[in-house]
């Protein structure tokens, strides 16, 4: 196996993802780490609640990873996404890609996070002091 897909309720670990994609023939690793920011459009965020339609979230993340291994052969991919209640600074997602050369690792990692945000059925609700809002739900 060259891909590792996980949907977790516990804190994510960059080392675990990095170790998954390391290999003696992989000279370039690129990791994207998405964390919970403390504000959005000027408003202070207290926390974020993530939920997923789990079987489909996993299968859609797997599709992204499989596409990467097809488009950039010999790559290794880890995608870990967290669900549940996250505090400011917590890691929501880690994507790690290892390839022989760095340009492919950058392109594949960016493809993965861009696609994840478009296709993977995960939702997040931003909690403010005066209310809450489902992110991206409304134009």
């Amino acid at each position: 196996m060259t891909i590792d897909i996980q949907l977790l309720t516990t804190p994510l670990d960059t080392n675990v993802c990095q170790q998954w994609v390391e290999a003696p023939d992989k000279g370039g690793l690129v990791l994207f780490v998405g964390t919970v920011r403390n504000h959005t459009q000027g408003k202070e965020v207290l926390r974020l609640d993530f939920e997923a339609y789990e079987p489909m979230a996993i299968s859609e993340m797997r599709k992204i990873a499989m596409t990467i291994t097809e488009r950039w052969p010999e790559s290794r991919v880890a995608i870990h996404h967290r669900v549940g209640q996250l505090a400011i600074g917590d890691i929501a997602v880690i994507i790690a890609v290892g390839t022989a050369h760095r340009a492919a690792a950058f392109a594949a990692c960016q493809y993965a996070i861009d696609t994840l945000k478009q296709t993977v059925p995960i939702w997040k609700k931003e909690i403010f002091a005066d209310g809450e809002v489902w992110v991206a739900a409304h134009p």
Partner: protein
Amino acid sequence: MEIKVLAFGIARDILGGPELKISGPENLTVGRLLELLKERYPAFVDLTSLAIAVNAEYANENQPISAGDEIVIIPPVAGG
């Protein structure tokens, strides 16, 4: 035909719960289900997007729905 529809995120808030039982015609399609949902819950019209997953795969509007399918309303996703 009675089908069960699951909902996540803002779709669950719009339905007022995680699950909806809906009676539709025998030859129900994904497109017709979306129409039924928007008729009954106009708040769905205001969303950035609205999709239906059938058995954990995105379904196009022409796809027929069978009684045993797992039907899920997918409001705009926001992972990462």
